[in-house]
Protein backbone atom coordinates (compact mmCIF):
# COMPACT_ATOMS: atom_id res chain seq x y z
CA UNK A 1 0.00 0.00 0.00
CA UNK A 2 2.82 2.33 0.87
CA UNK A 3 4.48 1.56 -2.38
CA UNK A 4 1.45 2.55 -4.41
CA UNK A 5 1.09 5.73 -2.36
CA UNK A 6 4.52 6.82 -3.45
CA UNK A 7 3.81 5.83 -6.98
CA UNK A 8 0.76 7.99 -7.15
CA UNK A 9 2.21 11.06 -5.48
CA UNK A 10 1.48 14.01 -7.77
CA UNK A 11 4.25 14.37 -10.29
CA UNK A 12 5.38 18.02 -10.09
CA UNK A 13 6.57 18.30 -13.70
CA UNK A 14 3.00 17.79 -14.86
CA UNK A 15 2.03 21.32 -13.95
CA UNK A 16 5.31 22.84 -15.13
CA UNK A 17 4.86 21.71 -18.74
CA UNK A 18 1.24 21.89 -19.86
CA UNK A 19 2.16 20.91 -23.40
CA UNK A 20 2.92 17.37 -22.33
CA UNK A 21 0.39 14.76 -23.52
CA UNK A 22 -2.49 13.96 -21.22
CA UNK A 23 -1.48 12.00 -18.17
CA UNK A 24 -3.33 8.86 -17.23
CA UNK A 25 -4.86 10.56 -14.21
CA UNK A 26 -6.15 13.43 -16.34
CA UNK A 27 -7.59 10.95 -18.83
CA UNK A 28 -9.32 8.97 -16.10
CA UNK A 29 -10.72 12.20 -14.66
CA UNK A 30 -12.24 13.15 -18.02
CA UNK A 31 -13.51 9.62 -18.50
CA UNK A 32 -15.30 9.62 -15.15
CA UNK A 33 -16.69 13.13 -15.75
CA UNK A 34 -17.94 12.19 -19.23
CA UNK A 35 -19.47 9.02 -17.82
CA UNK A 36 -21.32 10.96 -15.13
CA UNK A 37 -22.61 13.53 -17.64
CA UNK A 38 -23.86 10.78 -19.96
CA UNK A 39 -25.47 8.91 -17.07
CA UNK A 40 -27.13 12.08 -15.84
CA UNK A 41 -28.49 12.81 -19.31
CA UNK A 42 -29.76 9.24 -19.66
CA UNK A 43 -31.43 9.40 -16.25
CA UNK A 44 -33.03 12.78 -17.09
CA UNK A 45 -34.43 11.35 -20.34
CA UNK A 46 -35.77 8.24 -18.65
CA UNK A 47 -37.40 10.22 -15.85
CA UNK A 48 -38.97 12.76 -18.18
CA UNK A 49 -40.33 9.90 -20.32
CA UNK A 50 -41.73 8.15 -17.26
CA UNK A 51 -42.96 11.36 -15.68
CA UNK A 52 -46.63 10.40 -15.82
CA UNK A 53 -46.04 6.86 -14.60
CA UNK A 54 -44.12 7.99 -11.55
CA UNK A 55 -47.00 10.09 -10.25
CA UNK A 56 -48.40 8.65 -7.04
CA UNK A 57 -51.78 10.36 -7.34
CA UNK A 58 -53.75 12.69 -9.59
CA UNK A 59 -55.38 15.92 -8.52
CA UNK A 60 -59.08 16.52 -9.34
CA UNK A 61 -58.14 18.84 -12.24
CA UNK A 62 -55.86 16.22 -13.78
CA UNK A 63 -58.58 13.64 -13.37
CA UNK A 64 -60.95 15.85 -15.41
CA UNK A 65 -58.30 16.84 -17.97
CA UNK A 66 -57.36 13.26 -18.68
CA UNK A 67 -60.97 12.08 -19.03
CA UNK A 68 -60.12 8.94 -17.09
CA UNK A 69 -62.19 5.95 -18.14
CA UNK A 70 -64.52 4.71 -15.39
CA UNK A 71 -63.43 1.48 -13.77
CA UNK A 72 -59.66 2.06 -13.77
CA UNK A 73 -57.87 1.78 -10.45
CA UNK A 74 -56.03 4.95 -9.55
CA UNK A 75 -55.24 7.34 -6.73
CA UNK A 76 -56.46 10.87 -6.31
CA UNK A 77 -55.15 13.43 -3.86
CA UNK A 78 -56.07 16.86 -2.59
CA UNK A 79 -57.56 18.67 0.35
CA UNK A 80 -60.81 17.62 2.02
CA UNK A 81 -63.32 20.43 1.44
CA UNK A 82 -64.51 22.12 4.65
CA UNK A 83 -68.02 21.01 5.74
CA UNK A 84 -68.18 18.39 2.99
CA UNK A 85 -67.79 15.27 5.14
CA UNK A 86 -71.05 13.34 5.50
CA UNK A 87 -71.12 10.19 7.56
CA UNK A 88 -73.87 7.71 6.80
CA UNK A 89 -74.58 5.95 10.06
CA UNK A 90 -76.65 3.26 8.32
CA UNK A 91 -73.95 1.47 6.34
CA UNK A 92 -70.93 3.15 7.96
CA UNK A 93 -69.85 4.85 4.77
CA UNK A 94 -68.51 8.36 4.51
CA UNK A 95 -68.65 10.83 1.64
CA UNK A 96 -66.50 13.91 1.21
CA UNK A 97 -65.22 16.16 -1.53
CA UNK A 98 -61.54 16.48 -2.48
CA UNK A 99 -60.31 19.71 -4.02
CA UNK A 100 -57.16 21.16 -5.53
CA UNK A 101 -58.81 24.60 -5.10
CA UNK A 102 -59.87 24.72 -8.74
CA UNK A 103 -61.82 21.48 -9.19
CA UNK A 104 -63.52 19.03 -6.85
CA UNK A 105 -64.26 15.32 -6.88
CA UNK A 106 -66.81 13.54 -4.69
CA UNK A 107 -65.32 10.56 -2.87
CA UNK A 108 -67.19 7.79 -1.09
CA UNK A 109 -65.47 5.38 1.26
CA UNK A 110 -66.50 2.61 3.61
CA UNK A 111 -64.04 1.76 6.32
CA UNK A 112 -61.79 3.27 8.94
CA UNK A 113 -60.38 6.69 8.16
CA UNK A 114 -56.87 7.58 9.35
CA UNK A 115 -56.64 9.57 12.61
CA UNK A 116 -55.26 12.58 10.79
CA UNK A 117 -58.26 12.69 8.42
CA UNK A 118 -59.84 16.14 8.87
CA UNK A 119 -61.56 18.77 6.83
CA UNK A 120 -59.00 21.04 5.23
CA UNK A 121 -56.40 18.28 5.51
CA UNK A 122 -54.62 16.56 2.60
CA UNK A 123 -55.67 13.03 1.65
CA UNK A 124 -54.73 10.46 -0.96
CA UNK A 125 -57.47 7.96 -1.86
CA UNK A 126 -57.12 4.81 -3.93
CA UNK A 127 -60.08 3.40 -5.81
CA UNK A 128 -62.08 3.68 -9.02
CA UNK A 129 -64.04 6.45 -10.69
CA UNK A 130 -67.59 5.29 -11.36
CA UNK A 131 -69.85 6.33 -14.26
CA UNK A 132 -71.39 9.20 -12.31
CA UNK A 133 -67.98 10.78 -11.70
CA UNK A 134 -67.96 9.68 -8.05
CA UNK A 135 -64.67 8.29 -6.82
CA UNK A 136 -65.25 5.06 -4.90
CA UNK A 137 -62.28 4.74 -2.58
CA UNK A 138 -61.12 1.45 -1.16
CA UNK A 139 -58.29 3.03 0.82
CA UNK A 140 -57.81 6.54 2.22
CA UNK A 141 -54.40 7.79 3.39
CA UNK A 142 -53.75 11.05 5.20
CA UNK A 143 -51.15 13.38 3.72
CA UNK A 144 -49.65 16.00 5.97
CA UNK A 145 -47.70 19.10 4.99
CA UNK A 146 -44.13 20.09 5.76
CA UNK A 147 -45.01 22.43 8.65
CA UNK A 148 -44.16 21.40 12.19
CA UNK A 149 -45.06 23.46 15.23
CA UNK A 150 -46.37 23.08 18.77
CA UNK A 151 -50.18 23.32 19.19
CA UNK A 152 -49.87 26.63 21.10
CA UNK A 153 -48.09 28.23 18.16
CA UNK A 154 -50.75 26.94 15.77
CA UNK A 155 -53.45 28.40 18.04
CA UNK A 156 -51.63 31.71 18.31
CA UNK A 157 -51.27 31.91 14.53
CA UNK A 158 -54.96 31.14 14.11
CA UNK A 159 -55.92 33.79 16.69
CA UNK A 160 -53.74 36.49 15.17
CA UNK A 161 -55.23 35.77 11.76
CA UNK A 162 -51.90 34.91 10.19
CA UNK A 163 -52.82 31.27 9.87
CA UNK A 164 -55.21 31.61 6.97
CA UNK A 165 -53.07 33.83 4.84
CA UNK A 166 -50.11 31.57 5.42
CA UNK A 167 -52.13 28.41 4.93
CA UNK A 168 -53.99 29.61 1.89
CA UNK A 169 -50.84 30.80 0.17
CA UNK A 170 -49.37 27.41 0.62
CA UNK A 171 -52.45 25.61 -0.55
CA UNK A 172 -52.55 27.69 -3.68
CA UNK A 173 -48.98 26.75 -4.43
CA UNK A 174 -49.84 23.14 -3.87
CA UNK A 175 -52.88 23.26 -6.11
CA UNK A 176 -50.86 24.75 -8.90
CA UNK A 177 -48.53 21.82 -8.60
CA UNK A 178 -51.34 19.30 -8.54
CA UNK A 179 -52.89 20.90 -11.60
CA UNK A 180 -49.63 20.95 -13.53
Amino acid at each position, binding site marked *: *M*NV*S*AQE*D*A*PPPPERASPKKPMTR*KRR*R*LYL*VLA*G*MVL*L*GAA*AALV*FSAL*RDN*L*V*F*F*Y*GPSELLDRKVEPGHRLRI*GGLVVENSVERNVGDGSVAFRVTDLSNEVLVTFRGL*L*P*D*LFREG*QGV*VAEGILDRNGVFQAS*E*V*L*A*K*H*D*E*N*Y*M*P*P*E*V*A*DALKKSGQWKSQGRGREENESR*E*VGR
Partner: protein
Amino acid sequence: MHRFANPNRFLRIAALILPWSAAITVTLLVVGLYLALKVSPADYQQGESVRIMYVHVPAAWMALFVYSCLAGASAIALIWKHPLANLAAKASAPIGACFTFIALTTGAIWGKPIWDAWWVWDARLTSVLILFFFYMGHMALTSAFEDASRGERAAAILALVGFINIPVIKWSVDWWNTLHQPASIVRLDGPAIHASMLAPLLIMAASFATYYVSVLILRLRSEILARKMDALRLTRVRDSQEAHSL
Protein backbone atom coordinates in the same frame (compact mmCIF):
# COMPACT_ATOMS: atom_id res chain seq x y z
CA MET B 1 -5.67 15.66 -0.56
CA HIS B 2 -2.57 13.77 -1.59
CA ARG B 3 -1.05 14.47 1.82
CA PHE B 4 -3.74 12.44 3.57
CA ALA B 5 -3.46 9.50 1.20
CA ASN B 6 -0.57 8.12 3.20
CA PRO B 7 -2.00 5.46 5.53
CA ASN B 8 0.53 6.10 8.28
CA ARG B 9 -0.19 9.80 8.37
CA PHE B 10 -3.89 8.97 8.36
CA LEU B 11 -3.47 6.66 11.35
CA ARG B 12 -1.74 9.44 13.31
CA ILE B 13 -4.42 12.03 12.51
CA ALA B 14 -7.21 9.52 13.14
CA ALA B 15 -5.83 8.73 16.59
CA LEU B 16 -6.07 12.44 17.41
CA ILE B 17 -9.62 12.86 16.10
CA LEU B 18 -11.25 9.64 17.36
CA PRO B 19 -11.53 10.39 21.11
CA TRP B 20 -13.00 13.81 20.36
CA SER B 21 -15.49 12.63 17.76
CA ALA B 22 -16.57 9.75 20.00
CA ALA B 23 -17.05 12.05 23.01
CA ILE B 24 -18.96 14.61 20.95
CA THR B 25 -21.17 11.85 19.51
CA VAL B 26 -22.18 10.57 22.96
CA THR B 27 -22.73 14.07 24.39
CA LEU B 28 -24.82 15.27 21.46
CA LEU B 29 -26.81 12.03 21.37
CA VAL B 30 -27.70 12.27 25.07
CA VAL B 31 -28.58 15.96 24.86
CA GLY B 32 -30.40 15.52 21.55
CA LEU B 33 -32.47 12.54 22.71
CA TYR B 34 -33.40 14.32 25.95
CA LEU B 35 -34.51 17.42 24.06
CA ALA B 36 -36.30 15.37 21.39
CA LEU B 37 -38.16 12.95 23.65
CA LYS B 38 -38.71 15.08 26.75
CA VAL B 39 -38.38 18.82 26.18
CA SER B 40 -39.64 19.43 22.65
CA PRO B 41 -43.39 19.96 22.19
CA ALA B 42 -45.86 17.64 20.48
CA ASP B 43 -46.88 18.64 16.98
CA TYR B 44 -50.16 20.50 16.38
CA GLN B 45 -51.27 17.82 13.90
CA GLN B 46 -49.28 14.70 14.60
CA GLY B 47 -49.13 14.87 18.38
CA GLU B 48 -46.45 12.74 20.02
CA SER B 49 -45.79 10.70 16.86
CA VAL B 50 -43.72 13.61 15.58
CA ARG B 51 -40.87 12.50 17.86
CA ILE B 52 -39.98 9.75 15.38
CA MET B 53 -38.81 12.62 13.16
CA TYR B 54 -35.78 13.23 15.40
CA VAL B 55 -34.36 9.85 14.41
CA HIS B 56 -35.92 9.44 10.98
CA VAL B 57 -34.81 12.73 9.41
CA PRO B 58 -31.15 12.69 10.59
CA ALA B 59 -30.87 9.04 9.51
CA ALA B 60 -32.25 9.93 6.08
CA TRP B 61 -29.86 12.87 5.76
CA MET B 62 -26.95 10.65 6.71
CA ALA B 63 -28.07 8.00 4.21
CA LEU B 64 -27.66 10.62 1.46
CA PHE B 65 -24.51 12.18 2.95
CA VAL B 66 -22.68 8.87 3.44
CA TYR B 67 -23.55 7.83 -0.11
CA SER B 68 -22.17 11.13 -1.41
CA CYS B 69 -18.94 10.48 0.53
CA LEU B 70 -18.89 6.92 -0.83
CA ALA B 71 -19.29 8.19 -4.40
CA GLY B 72 -16.65 10.89 -3.85
CA ALA B 73 -14.18 8.36 -2.45
CA SER B 74 -14.94 6.03 -5.36
CA ALA B 75 -14.23 8.79 -7.88
CA ILE B 76 -10.91 9.59 -6.16
CA ALA B 77 -10.05 5.89 -6.12
CA LEU B 78 -10.84 5.48 -9.82
CA ILE B 79 -9.07 8.64 -11.01
CA TRP B 80 -6.10 9.11 -8.67
CA LYS B 81 -5.80 5.55 -7.32
CA HIS B 82 -5.36 6.76 -3.78
CA PRO B 83 -4.85 3.74 -1.55
CA LEU B 84 -7.09 5.10 1.20
CA ALA B 85 -10.01 6.07 -1.05
CA ASN B 86 -11.05 2.48 -1.80
CA LEU B 87 -10.81 1.63 1.87
CA ALA B 88 -12.92 4.67 2.80
CA ALA B 89 -15.58 3.64 0.28
CA LYS B 90 -15.56 0.07 1.55
CA ALA B 91 -15.76 1.24 5.18
CA SER B 92 -18.59 3.72 4.47
CA ALA B 93 -20.98 1.31 2.71
CA PRO B 94 -22.24 -0.65 5.76
CA ILE B 95 -22.61 2.56 7.80
CA GLY B 96 -24.65 4.19 5.06
CA ALA B 97 -26.70 1.02 4.62
CA CYS B 98 -27.52 1.09 8.36
CA PHE B 99 -28.60 4.75 8.20
CA THR B 100 -30.79 3.95 5.17
CA PHE B 101 -32.29 0.97 6.95
CA ILE B 102 -33.05 3.12 10.01
CA ALA B 103 -34.63 5.79 7.80
CA LEU B 104 -36.80 3.17 6.06
CA THR B 105 -37.95 1.39 9.22
CA THR B 106 -38.60 4.55 11.28
CA GLY B 107 -40.40 5.92 8.24
CA ALA B 108 -42.67 2.86 8.19
CA ILE B 109 -43.32 3.15 11.93
CA TRP B 110 -44.09 6.85 11.49
CA GLY B 111 -46.21 6.28 8.39
CA LYS B 112 -48.60 3.83 10.04
CA PRO B 113 -50.14 6.26 12.59
CA ILE B 114 -49.91 9.37 10.39
CA TRP B 115 -50.66 8.19 6.84
CA ASP B 116 -52.32 4.94 7.86
CA ALA B 117 -49.86 2.96 5.70
CA TRP B 118 -46.56 1.28 6.52
CA TRP B 119 -45.35 1.62 2.98
CA VAL B 120 -46.46 3.19 -0.31
CA TRP B 121 -44.69 3.06 -3.66
CA ASP B 122 -44.35 6.81 -4.08
CA ALA B 123 -41.28 8.41 -5.64
CA ARG B 124 -39.56 9.33 -2.35
CA LEU B 125 -39.94 5.97 -0.62
CA THR B 126 -39.07 3.98 -3.73
CA SER B 127 -35.95 6.02 -4.50
CA VAL B 128 -34.70 5.57 -0.91
CA LEU B 129 -35.29 1.82 -1.18
CA ILE B 130 -33.20 1.87 -4.38
CA LEU B 131 -30.47 3.69 -2.42
CA PHE B 132 -30.53 0.83 0.08
CA PHE B 133 -30.09 -1.66 -2.79
CA PHE B 134 -27.15 0.35 -4.12
CA TYR B 135 -25.46 0.10 -0.71
CA MET B 136 -26.14 -3.66 -0.65
CA GLY B 137 -24.86 -4.04 -4.21
CA HIS B 138 -21.72 -2.09 -3.35
CA MET B 139 -20.99 -4.32 -0.36
CA ALA B 140 -21.64 -7.50 -2.37
CA LEU B 141 -19.54 -6.37 -5.34
CA THR B 142 -16.58 -5.32 -3.17
CA SER B 143 -16.17 -8.86 -1.93
CA ALA B 144 -17.38 -10.72 -5.02
CA PHE B 145 -14.00 -11.10 -6.71
CA GLU B 146 -11.05 -13.30 -5.86
CA ASP B 147 -8.82 -10.34 -6.64
CA ALA B 148 -9.80 -7.60 -4.15
CA SER B 149 -8.71 -4.73 -6.41
CA ARG B 150 -11.06 -5.85 -9.19
CA GLY B 151 -13.96 -5.94 -6.74
CA GLU B 152 -13.10 -2.47 -5.48
CA ARG B 153 -12.97 -1.15 -9.04
CA ALA B 154 -16.33 -2.65 -9.97
CA ALA B 155 -17.89 -1.37 -6.73
CA ALA B 156 -16.48 2.12 -7.36
CA ILE B 157 -18.13 2.24 -10.79
CA LEU B 158 -21.40 1.03 -9.25
CA ALA B 159 -21.14 3.76 -6.59
CA LEU B 160 -20.77 6.45 -9.27
CA VAL B 161 -23.71 5.09 -11.26
CA GLY B 162 -25.83 5.09 -8.09
CA PHE B 163 -24.95 8.71 -7.37
CA ILE B 164 -27.58 9.70 -9.97
CA ASN B 165 -30.13 8.54 -7.41
CA ILE B 166 -29.09 11.15 -4.81
CA PRO B 167 -30.57 14.26 -6.50
CA VAL B 168 -33.58 12.14 -7.47
CA ILE B 169 -34.22 11.35 -3.79
CA LYS B 170 -33.73 14.97 -2.72
CA TRP B 171 -36.14 16.44 -5.27
CA SER B 172 -38.52 13.49 -5.71
CA VAL B 173 -41.04 15.25 -3.46
CA ASP B 174 -40.96 18.33 -5.71
CA TRP B 175 -40.84 16.63 -9.12
CA TRP B 176 -43.68 14.19 -8.56
CA ASN B 177 -46.86 13.95 -6.52
CA THR B 178 -45.86 11.91 -3.50
CA LEU B 179 -47.51 10.93 -0.26
CA HIS B 180 -44.31 11.99 1.50
CA GLN B 181 -44.42 15.70 2.36
CA PRO B 182 -41.94 18.19 0.82
CA ALA B 183 -38.73 19.26 2.55
CA SER B 184 -39.12 21.17 5.83
CA ILE B 185 -35.54 22.27 6.48
CA VAL B 186 -33.42 22.36 3.33
CA ARG B 187 -35.62 24.58 1.16
CA LEU B 188 -35.54 28.05 -0.35
CA ASP B 189 -38.08 29.71 2.00
CA GLY B 190 -36.21 28.72 5.15
CA PRO B 191 -37.22 26.01 7.62
CA ALA B 192 -40.95 25.32 8.02
CA ILE B 193 -40.41 23.95 11.50
CA HIS B 194 -40.69 25.68 14.85
CA ALA B 195 -37.40 26.56 16.60
CA SER B 196 -38.25 24.35 19.60
CA MET B 197 -38.32 21.35 17.25
CA LEU B 198 -35.53 22.45 14.93
CA ALA B 199 -32.91 22.60 17.72
CA PRO B 200 -33.17 18.93 18.83
CA LEU B 201 -33.35 17.85 15.19
CA LEU B 202 -30.09 19.61 14.32
CA ILE B 203 -28.38 18.30 17.47
CA MET B 204 -29.40 14.75 16.58
CA ALA B 205 -28.16 15.28 13.03
CA ALA B 206 -24.80 16.55 14.33
CA SER B 207 -24.46 13.53 16.60
CA PHE B 208 -25.23 11.18 13.70
CA ALA B 209 -22.57 12.94 11.63
CA THR B 210 -19.87 12.64 14.31
CA TYR B 211 -20.95 9.02 14.80
CA TYR B 212 -20.21 8.44 11.12
CA VAL B 213 -16.77 10.06 11.50
CA SER B 214 -15.97 7.90 14.54
CA VAL B 215 -17.09 4.60 13.05
CA LEU B 216 -15.44 5.42 9.73
CA ILE B 217 -12.12 5.99 11.53
CA LEU B 218 -12.50 2.73 13.47
CA ARG B 219 -13.31 0.73 10.36
CA LEU B 220 -10.58 2.35 8.29
CA ARG B 221 -8.02 1.76 11.03
CA SER B 222 -8.82 -1.93 11.37
CA GLU B 223 -8.83 -2.33 7.58
CA ILE B 224 -5.38 -0.68 7.30
CA LEU B 225 -4.01 -2.82 10.11
CA ALA B 226 -5.48 -5.97 8.55
CA ARG B 227 -3.76 -5.19 5.24
CA LYS B 228 -0.48 -4.48 7.01
CA MET B 229 -0.73 -7.84 8.74
CA ASP B 230 -1.37 -9.53 5.40
CA ALA B 231 1.71 -7.83 3.97
CA LEU B 232 3.81 -8.87 6.97
CA ARG B 233 2.61 -12.47 6.75
CA LEU B 234 3.44 -12.48 3.05
CA THR B 235 7.01 -11.26 3.61
CA ARG B 236 7.47 -13.80 6.39
CA VAL B 237 6.35 -16.64 4.13
CA ARG B 238 8.63 -15.36 1.40
CA ASP B 239 11.57 -15.09 3.81
CA SER B 240 11.11 -18.62 5.08
CA GLN B 241 10.87 -19.91 1.51
CA GLU B 242 14.10 -18.17 0.64
CA ALA B 243 15.72 -19.63 3.76
CA HIS B 244 14.64 -23.12 2.66
CA SER B 245 15.90 -22.75 -0.84
CA LEU B 246 19.31 -21.65 0.38
